[in-house]
């Protein structure tokens, strides 16, 4: 009896292998060496290696593991965004109380595990790998949200995310079952063919399956009306983890959203396009209106993320190459815009007794210009003002939407942006137009986000390079790609072309 070993494309699997090894190494490093020392460095090295391996595979699309994964430029682009977000999160986690309490090794290993899930999810081309990846991504995050164990909100955030996340996963799985029933296949490509051959296009059960999958993914991407967990979880989780979730989870979930809906369900596009368009519009309204009255910066960014998810979903709604490119471009821009803001929030959280309250950034323009500028640029970019990547991103999305005959959704984006100015500019006004607030020494900081057992204050946090550096870097990126967008446009076009 002869046994032929399956051929394994190690080159294309190398990013996944590297991350898997890294998870184990980082976890073991906590056992071998005293905590706090090695783990962040090792994590950064692992992320850099993975990024390098991904770039090495750029522009050579291959199908792996008998069709379960597909490493194309879309997958690579999204993975790179997730990895960059993770690298920022590692820097922001230096001296983060949550990382110390959970154990630095475990904390970073979980982070890497989540990244592994994202890299897999971006490549998933099969219902099984899709579901396994999305769980690999989520489970470490449930734990990471709860790592700041002395703060009740952190625990609450973890539990909430676990429950809502499981609900989302269950819905997703249920939907997958319907689709498997309709097509008899788990492979994305064969689902499309199967539904077509069985003559089930427009069949109610298949449509239910599509709807359930869409709802499951809407939970992950925090699209209204499945967004309720977002502000609470964002607020409660340790801020570096929030920043990572806001950018990376969204990117990875959108990657599979796009791939699944276009590759597997492209034949049904006429049915789901209008529904997703409505979801996008609802998200834009709910997110922007919800953010208006928020005093907590993390909640504000949470709601803003809901609105931004609505904009991004527009790129999928049109189901065109330009749409997917616009989506990838926006996600890449979102990385810069959002991380600049979160870096500043982390710095101010540690520096002032106000936690993530908007009062923490009052008078920042005079006190800490190096933090004030990134925050300002981030807010202006999120609001889509010109000379930032946010403007080009909106331009790209609107162009794709108008081209795809969804001009009304483009108008919605414009209207949403107007509403959003009211809260983004409120932060800018707090930075530049209000004097700073000094907390009375010794007074109990009874403010949102800062329980009596609050984390210790580090009065120099606003000067530390590992906080100011990421903030400046992300802000510089947001401005640079607003003025010289062509490289990022080409990157996004490459990614978008891989599905068509």
């Amino acid at each position, binding site marked *: 009896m002869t046994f032929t070993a399956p051929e394994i494309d190690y080159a294309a699997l190398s990013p996944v292998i590297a991350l898997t090894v890294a998870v184990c190494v980082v976890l073991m490093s906590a056992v071998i060496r005293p905590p706090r020392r090695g783990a962040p460095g090792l994590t950064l090295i692992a992320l850099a290696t993975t990024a390098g391996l991904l770039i090495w595979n750029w522009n050579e699309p291959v199908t792996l593991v008998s069709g379960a994964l597909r490493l194309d430029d879309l997958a690579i682009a999204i993975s790179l965004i997730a990895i960059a977000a993770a690298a920022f999160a590692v820097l922001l986690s230096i001296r983060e109380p949550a990382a110390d309490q959970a154990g630095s090794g475990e904390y970073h290993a979980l982070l890497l595990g989540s990244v592994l899930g994202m890299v897999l999810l971006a490549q998933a081309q099969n219902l099984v790998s899709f579901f396994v990846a999305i769980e690999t991504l989520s489970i470490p995050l449930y734990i990471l949200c709860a790592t700041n164990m002395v703060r009740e909100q952190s625990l609450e955030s973890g539990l909430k995310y676990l429950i809502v996340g499981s609900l989302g996963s269950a819905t997703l799985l249920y939907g997958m079952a319907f689709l498997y029933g309709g097509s008899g296949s788990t492979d994305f490509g064969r689902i499309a063919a199967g539904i077509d051959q069985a003559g089930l296009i427009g069949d109610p059960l298949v449509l239910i399956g599509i709807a359930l999958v869409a709802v499951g993914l809407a939970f992950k991407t925090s699209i209204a009306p499945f967004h309720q967990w977002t502000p609470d979880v964002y607020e409660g989780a340790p801020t570096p983890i929030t920043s990572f979730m806001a950018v990376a989870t969204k990117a990875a979930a959108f990657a599979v959203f796009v791939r699944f809906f276009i590759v597997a369900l492209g034949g049904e596009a006429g049915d789901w396009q209008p529904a997703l368009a409505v979801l996008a519009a609802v998200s834009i309204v709910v997110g922007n209106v919800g953010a208006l009255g928020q005093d907590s910066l993390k909640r504000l960014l949470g709601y803003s993320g809901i609105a931004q998810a609505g904009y991004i979903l527009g790129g999928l709604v049109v189901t065109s190459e330009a749409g997917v490119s616009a989506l990838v471009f926006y996600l890449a821009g979102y990385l810069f815009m959002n991380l600049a803001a979160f870096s500043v929030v982390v710095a101010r959280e540690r520096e002032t007794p106000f936690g993530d309250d908007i009062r923490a950034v009052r008078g920042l323009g005079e006190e800490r210009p190096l933090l004030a500028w990134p925050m300002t640029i981030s807010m202006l970019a999120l609001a889509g003002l010109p000379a930032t990547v946010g403007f080009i991103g909106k331009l790209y999305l609107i162009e794709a939407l*108008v081209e795809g005959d969804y*001009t009304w959704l483009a108008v919605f984006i414009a209207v949403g942006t107007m509403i959003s100015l009211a809260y983004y500019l409120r932060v800018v006004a707090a930075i530049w137009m209000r004097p700073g607030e000094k907390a009375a020494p010794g007074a109990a900081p009874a403010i949102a986000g800062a329980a009596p057992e609050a984390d210790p204050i580090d009065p120099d946090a606003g000067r530390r390079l590992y906080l100011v550096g990421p903030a400046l870097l992300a802000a510089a990126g947001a401005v640079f790609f607003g003025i010289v967008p062509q490289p990022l446009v080409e990157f996004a076009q490459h990614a978008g072309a891989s599905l068509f």
Partner: protein
Amino acid sequence: MINSLLWTPLIFGLAGLALPKRLAGWWAALGAAATLALAIALLAGFDSGAPGLQDSYDASWIPGLGVRYSLGIDGLNVFLVLLTAVVWLGGTAFAAFREQERPHLFFLMLLLGETATLGAFLAQDLLLFVLFFDLMLVPFYFLFGAWGSDREGGPTASAATLKMIVYTLIGSLLMLVGAIATAIIAADGGQVSFSIAELARQPLGEGSQRWIFWFFAAAFLVKMPAFLLHGWMPDAYRAAPLPVLAVFSGVLAKVGAYGFLRVVLPLFPDATIEFQEVVLVIALASILYGSVMAFTQTNLRLIGGYSSVAQLGFITAGIFALRADGADGAVLQMVNHGLVVAPLFIIVAILAERSGSEDLREMGGMAMRAPVLAALFLIVTLATLAMPGSANFVGEFYILNGLFQEKIVFAFVAISGVAMSAYYALRLYQRTMHNRRPEGVASREIGLGDGLVLVPLVLCIIGLALYPQLVLKRTDAAVSEAVASVQPEAPAKADGITFSTGYARGER
């Protein structure tokens, strides 16, 4: 050349960050002066007869999205660019003579505003135009919000500014959608191009024009501001620091009117004809409302602000007469109004320093010991009310002339605005400079520094009054072309005039 003109202010602004605080203002003024020198050089090389772009720069910017970095100068914008440079130098120098908080940031924002405004005037790519149009807001948001004054019992400076931003962006974001829609519908599946000249060559179908027209019109009418869309103006004007308000009112409002000529008329000719009367009604309402408000207000800033509403109503009416005459007059009037309103706000600042108030009721008698100030103010006042002999008279004359030929009823209503402007301008002058001097109001001659700012601006007014064809001669060809795109059958200007002054043809 055109590139260095655009970026000089910003480069100076950024370089100024490295200088010590007390030099920041002077450095910025130097930057504004350098920009002015470039603008004058550009004008010197301008050939008055040619309608097309004379100096242009075109480079690929975002090929993936069809956006080009394309600048150009022609008869439509050459004087607006010059106006921008002149007024900005005045405003910057005036601010430099006074102590500013956080001067680095103040002057950086002021100069960023100049670059953005010049960009909006120079852009020949529709999307680049939208980008600069929106970018103009950012520096003024900071300038109004952070250096403005909170009003007792009213909104704070940042709240007033937020209102302004939301109002203006409502227009501009819709304009962004409209611009993209224009290009994509025009491309019809082919290569997307945002070049204004290319888009003008084959206008869209009437149905698309109709809604896109209003997206653009909303942006421009809010910016001016026109009647019903002026809600942001009173609060923002009361909050703004005065030197900034001088450039804001002097130049930014004109970008809206310019947008009609540059974008709306050539790109949406059918819709323009269709909605001509609607816009004319808005323009007339602005004239009447602005004038009436200007002579009932007692706050000096608001008198200036509402008079601008009225003046921009005139300019809009001139453009929407859709006659070469009217549009010629509108362009001249844009320059005139900018040159008049900027010194007006600077004078308001000077008067406020002398009386400690910005209220007309608490002023008076300030001419007594300040003959030079009184004389300068008088010239500005007379120019505001379009005294015959001033360039404003010529501008209004052309506008009304165009309007008479096209819509005689509208012209009669517009004339009442001319009469009312005499009332509010003279009221402003008398109540501040003449009458009895109340306690606590000083009558003091203007200082050397302020004089250095004000006298050249007033000299510009006088110069233009003596020689308005400086503008008319150079703008006529381009303006006629813009208007001709709407009504190709309209008779050429020379035969259309029944009571010509000969200004435009230089026959005086």
